């Protein structure tokens, strides 16, 4: 089973203090740690688990600058066989659609049975790249997948819906699945993995390798464009409790008695 995984390197902002930079169009990324997008870490783990079970290869793709090699190498160290980076000045500023466009063209050149992507990225949160790639490659897709069973020439996938409900669907292969967090436990990178990676070359594909015109990718190939960033209104309505922890505890106690009917 030959599997392709599309990944992205993103700043880790879950616990970080973030601010908007001077351009007003980006966040200040200095001092932020970068890592493989959380959803993608589950996607690559799932691909490697499938490979371990059924054989075949795992090839990782990412669109991005040289920094993205770090995340591609991580995937290789986890157990992927090959990594390919799409890089070209023309790709800059692309939205989800333009990113999918470039990736789809690259994937066309490679035979595969299954493509996995994360359901969305931590930074842009478009949640569209996977489904658009599938559309462009004319293959079926299932999004928000939290369980996979591979069968003869098809895959049974559990899709996470709202309210604890799951939808079970089957799709013919080749297909694309977007992977939800929690589907597995992504492994640690081992030193053995790093040694293996050290000898690997990450192939770079540019615009000319992909049969694309500059106007089809990057900002000019995008549906949407960022105008400016601003901080969401915060703290509206929340009365901030201050004082000694004991005083705060006293207040919480009163709220619980008053509003929660605590005995």
């Amino acid at each position: 089973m030959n599997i392709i995984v599309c990944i992205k390197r993103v700043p880790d902002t879950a616990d970080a203090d973030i601010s908007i930079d001077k351009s007003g169009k980006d966040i200040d990324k200095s001092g932020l740690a970068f890592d493989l997008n959380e959803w993608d870490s589950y996607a690559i783990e799932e691909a490697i688990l499938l490979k371990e079970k059924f054989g075949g290869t795992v090839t990782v793709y990412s669109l991005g600058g040289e920094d993205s090699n770090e995340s591609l190498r991580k995937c290789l160290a986890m157990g992927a066989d090959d990594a390919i980076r799409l890089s070209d000045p023309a790709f800059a500023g692309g939205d989800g659609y333009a990113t999918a466009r470039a990736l789809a063209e690259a994937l066309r050149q490679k035979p595969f049975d299954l493509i996995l992507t994360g359901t969305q990225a931590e930074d842009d949160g478009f949640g569209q790249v996977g489904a658009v790639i599938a559309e462009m490659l004319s293959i079926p897709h299932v999004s928000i997948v939290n369980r996979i069973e591979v069968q003869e020439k098809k895959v049974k996938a559990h899709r996470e819906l709202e309210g604890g409900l799951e939808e079970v669907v089957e799709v013919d292969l080749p297909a694309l699945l977007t992977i939800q967090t929690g589907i597995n436990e992504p492994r640690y990178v081992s030193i053995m993995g790093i040694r293996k990676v050290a000898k690997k070359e990450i192939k770079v594909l540019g615009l000319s390798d992909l049969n694309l015109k500059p106007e089809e990718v990057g900002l000019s190939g995008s549906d949407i464009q960022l105008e400016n960033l601003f901080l969401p209104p915060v703290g509206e309505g929340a009365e901030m409790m201050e004082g000694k922890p004991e005083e705060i505890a006293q207040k919480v106690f009163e709220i619980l008695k008053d509003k929660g009917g605590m005995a």
Partner: protein
Amino acid sequence: MDFELTQEQKDIQKAAREFIQGEYDKEKILEWEKNHTFPKEVWKKACKLGFIGIHFPEEYGGQGYGITENILVVEEFCRKDSGVGIAVTLADFSSEVILRFGTPEQKKKYLVPVARGEFISGGAYTEPNHGSDITLMGTTAVRQGDSFVINGTKTFITNGTLADFFVVLCQTDPHAKPSYRGQCTILVEKGTKGLDATEITPKMGIRLTSTAELSFSDVRVPLTNLIGEENKGFYQVLEFFDESRIEIAAQGLGIAQGAFDRALDYAKQREQFGRKIVDFQITQHKLADMATKIETARLLTYKAAWNYDQGRIDPKLTSMAKMFAGKVAVEVADEAIQIFGGYGYITEYEVERFYRDAKITEIYEGTKEIQKNTIASALIGKLK
């Protein structure tokens, strides 16, 4: 000159960081600290992932990297948690004596299980009557037929009650002049008749690892347990120190960085007099001093490691790194507690543990005074 780590080294650093971050569990660690428990699961996992024995050759279960890669792991582990970091990265303590001087058979027999997480190793050098001075050993090994018979006592032995085998420095020729020309290193396995280990407790820090007294009473081991050449034990151990002291420097470095990380995080949150304490210049200056010391210790430690990996043994540089990084660990952890104020004194806030763990890096593997002797003698020339 290039101060950058290689891509591979950065990957190793990141892998170590992610692993220890994933395994870090504050409540568990506080529990282990209270009960003096070795973090066995974390150690086993670290071995499985190749972090332990990373500097052993592949044929002996290792990853074929150098001491630079090893100390990157040590630094990251100790940075996230001084207790777990020290305990886990010392699980292969003294294996290097076998690695550098042992026979292929000894390496296969002992190093492979150490890298796999099946064996913990130990080194028995210090004696109750001689601390860092190992020129004359009270522990003797006498040849009897095809065996050595060992008698004596060793103290402050890291991994004492955990290790599966020890490298023991013994006086084999009590009449040798000078005395250190009559010493050998000999392998003794756990469970050998006459070997007894007693935990030394309570102690200030490093409570997740064992520190014990070993007593040898007619302990009989085969002559083939001799490591390397006869009467070269003293020189082997000194050469081992040139390597191990860099690792201890990396412990200090990691502890300092970990204490700093926590202090910085706290300073950004804590408010006093209506302002975040990080907004006070006095806090800013403290942080600047701490960061500068850490960076200096890092440069020295990395340089010592790099130098070793170039095949050059420079006791002066190693001792400088060990002495300075240990001092920085203590000073930075001390200042971190100060930034935390009263909370810093409380176990839950961790920096007091970093402080207690930091102190050992100024003591074991040669006190800072011994390091100064080494540095001075290299500067001035042989003192004798």
